[in-house]
């Protein structure tokens, strides 16, 4: 898989847009997932697109020191951080994004006449999603990379430029905060 990335990156660096299109198609699910968890669904698509545009512009600087996916995650995290900072300084809150997400979950349930247990799962996912987005920024990005994207601490360290011990502490704290905020879900976290 990664070997294919190497060939596609080389071709993209030579200006082959079809090759870069293949890289986009391959990595869009993970970058869109990262942006959705970090930003909420309303802004995720735009931030994910900006991530790929920024990657393309900086592609000449990619020297294969890391996996392409690691480098791309790094750009994605920075884009999300920039966008969140811009939203905060513009006075926006994440409530809109959370509300939109709740609507999405509700619509999904209605459209598919979801059975009761699946509805519970969707509600749980919606709650968890909302609480993840309510985490402090540094805890949120660490938790998402570790437990939503399933990366190990070494790769996270390469993406975030932070040492493993600090990342572990952030993930520990994120987990504790999430357990606390989701404690009202009877039988799930208590």
């Amino acid at each position, binding site marked *: 898989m990664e070997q294919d990335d190497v060939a596609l990156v080389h071709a993209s660096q*030579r200006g082959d*847009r079809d090759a870069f299109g293949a890289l986009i198609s391959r990595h869009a699910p993970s970058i869109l997932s990262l942006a959705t968890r970090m930003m909420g669904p309303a802004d995720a698509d735009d931030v994910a697109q900006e991530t790929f545009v920024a990657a393309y512009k900086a592609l000449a600087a990619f020297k294969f020191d890391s996996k392409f996916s690691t480098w791309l995650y790094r750009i994605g995290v920075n*884009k999300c951080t920039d966008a969140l900072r811009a939203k905060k300084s513009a006075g926006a809150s994440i409530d809109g994004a959370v509300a939109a997400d709740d609507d999405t979950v509700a619509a999904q349930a209605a459209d598919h006449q979801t059975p009761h247990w699946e509805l519970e799962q969707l509600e749980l996912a919606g709650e968890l999603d909302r609480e993840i987005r309510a985490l402090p920024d540094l805890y949120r990005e660490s938790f998402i990379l570790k437990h939503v994207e399933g990366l190990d601490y070494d790769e996270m360290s390469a993406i975030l430029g932070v040492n493993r011990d600090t990342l572990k502490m952030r993930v520990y704290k994120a987990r504790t905060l999430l357990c606390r905020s989701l404690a009202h879900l009877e039988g799930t976290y208590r």
Partner: protein
Amino acid sequence: MTNTSDDMRAEELVQRFIDQELTAEERMQFVARLGRDEALRRRAMELESLVLDASRLPRPIVPAGFTASVLRRLPEPNVWQRLSAALWTGRTLQWNLGGAMAVAAVLVLAVSALVVRDRRTPGTSGTLGTSGTPLLPVRLVMMQPGAKVVQVAGDFNGWNPAQTPLERVSADGAWSVTIPLKPGRYAYMFVVDGRQWVADPFASEQKDDGFGSRNAVVDVRPDVKTGASL
């Protein structure tokens, strides 16, 4: 879990268990302890549930036109890329001296343009947060007249107080350290005489640390003198 010290050890153990970072021996001891410590068992289960649910969060569906939409936003390839693409597509070039000199001139221009672009575009290095990020001096001050040792632990030193001791800077008990930090938000606590963890009373912001106390938070920004920067 019986007292605070035990609680902290148990919490660290269970968190490392969730991360699958216990040694084989530690894991054996931990599993044995789970059998007799109900509180620890409950804590392990709630963390396991959380981690499992997070890994099962539904992946967003990539919209149908996503790739095409990104490709439309890409800048046009530069001269170097067009030339390189032409060379790699296997076309036969008709070489002659004039043509070769023209290509060499284009190459020199293209390489120069790349160098200039790299220097001018902070996005290449700055966006990625690698080299070149300015470090800003942050001065932390603590009043502890009776203390023998004051240290600070935080996000910036892996929460290892031994790495960052403060110096006594006045006879009335002021301790201080200046730390170079990249822009960002950092949680931290002072550690007095190696055992007492104290939040910075000068900090402009504090946050629940999730373990029953509050961390001070410093927001390091190039344009703002922070509350902890005295």
